[in-house]
């Protein structure tokens, strides 16, 4: 069930604003979607390789430059499709669980 959910949430977060991994981790940890941070990096790389994300380097005051990720147009489209599927899914689940 987790499959795909993490990607959906990440895309959702990045659609609102540019973020660098530590920000994303903060958000995900808050919602308890990930337990260890290691999981995130291969995932981001995969989404980037798939053309859904792109990043830019930004200088940091407190250290080395950071990678800021943002959705691409393809990413936006994909997110829309995902949202639709997600809503359908949520609706279906609600319907079946509240019947009786």
């Amino acid at each position, binding site marked *: 069930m987790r499959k795909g959910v993490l990607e959906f949430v990440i895309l959702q977060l990045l659609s609102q604003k540019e973020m660098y991994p530590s920000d994303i981790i903060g958000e995900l940890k808050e919602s308890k979607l990930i337990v260890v941070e290691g999981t995130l990096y*291969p995932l981001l790389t995969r989404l980037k390789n798939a053309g859904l994300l792109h990043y830019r380097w930004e200088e940091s005051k407190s250290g080395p430059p950071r990678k800021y990720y943002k959705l691409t147009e393809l990413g936006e489209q994909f997110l829309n499709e995902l949202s639709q599927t997600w809503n359908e899914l949520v609706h279906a689940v609600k319907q079946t669980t509240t019947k009786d």
Partner: protein
Amino acid sequence: MNKTINVNIGGRIFSIEEDAYAKLEKYLRAIRNSFEGHQSADEIISDIELRISELFAERISESKQVIILFDVDAVIGIMGSPEDYIDPEDDEFEEEFTHKRTGRTYEKRVFRDPDDKLLFGVCSGLSAYLGWDPLVLRAIFVISTLAWGVGPIIYIILALIIPKAKTTAEKLQMRGEPVTVDNISKKVNESFSGMKEDIKDFGNRNKFSGERANSAGKQIGDVISDFFDALGRVLKVLIVVLAKIFGVVLFMAGLLGLVALITSLFGMDSFLSSTGSREVSEFVNSTLTDPSNRNLFFSGIALVLGIPALSLLLLGIRLLFRQVRYTGYLPIILLIFWFVGIGLLAAGGAHLVKDRRAQAEFTESLKPNLAASVDTLVLDAESSEFSRFRFSGDFMDGSVFFEGGVTIPWADSTNVVYVGKNRITIKQAAGDQFLLEVEKSARGSSQKDAIRNARQMKSNWSIAGDSLRLSPYFVLETGSKIRGQEARYHLFVPIGKAVHLAPGSEDIIYNIPNVTNTYDWDMLGKTWLMTENGLKCTTCQYEGKADEEDEIDTREEYQPDNYPEEYEEENEVI
């Protein structure tokens, strides 16, 4: 106080304690291994390093400037174990890792094992995959080589096809163990040298990551580079095998030497035995002076012969079992004991020499009761007594060693320790009667002792009709010392009377002078008349002139080989 190392993580410098560094290094290596072959591996890892450097930066302040083990543990806790890095959605991971994560059984893969290899590690790698003992497969390969000759071909093909397990993760996969940080660290700790090799491999891998696609070519290069390694290893194995064989030989030689020595000294039939065949130990007792001398002597022999045997044995053991180590003083200790043995032998020998320094002899007149009418005396040996003995060679200066189980009528046969040879010669008698004398000699610590030792000799002779029979041997009985006893009989023959030497007298006659200088064995079976000049043969075919001619012939034969032939001819003419 702890040593720290400066490291660059994600573009930042950190001071990190050694143990913390070791842990972090191991962790990053495990992660790298889990991304082995992933096309974005480098990118992902640099992202991870960036994040780790951020986490470290958060843990550093003015008052705490060094990363310690605790920080590394905490960061690892945040980042997760290498399995957590695996992205289940990623196709590249699907193949290798999904069933590893979901199932309890972990996929095994065939690799060549670089840690336990004789040639290229094919057998040990396959064995690890099959869960066998590598020895079994190696034996199969050797046997198939000997039986059909296909072993090396199959081996080379397998060596080319099967990749070498380079990383710890691959080595774990080879054994079918799950690739987890725990396992990797366990494996890495197993051999420090293995870890160093891995680190080396690591650098190479990153450098040539672009070429990795061309794995077949690399594989061949791998095999060739392994070839010289293998050659060296085979030579090493050969040397080890030779050393082992040599060790076995030395071991056996030493062991046999020790066993032979011990049994000859202490065994049933030994020199020191009190239960085995009595004759041997009594012979020894009679030769040596007293028990203390005997102990001295045999401790000496035991050390002088035993130490070299023991050294061979120890050397053999050392060659056979590499873990056996002797103290460096061992050769010195052995040498000291050996010299002690030499010293004991010398002391014993000195004692023996002292006991033999004097020589004495005395003459006994024997009265042969012969009828006055006897003109020709027949001399014979009493051979029936010793018919069982036919000694080919003499033992200790013309004497022979007595063998048990023979009955001698005139001696206590069960107590005989030594048998010596009697000798008889013929001389001209002053009167007109046959006379017999015996001259006995022996050695001892003093003249008196020597005479006492000489008196210990027992022998027998008898007169029957016109024949004198002399026993060919004298004996020494238990309790007497063997001290070079000798018995020389003299038969005095009056002028005008004769002696016939019966063939049986061969054993006793010795240096009988005669006018024709005939050798003892040529005198046998003939009758010899005592003349003014000495004994003269009366039954021989050749006489006088014939003998002289013989002498001339002999002289010619003694001319030197390089004598010129012409001269020789001239000489003959003259």
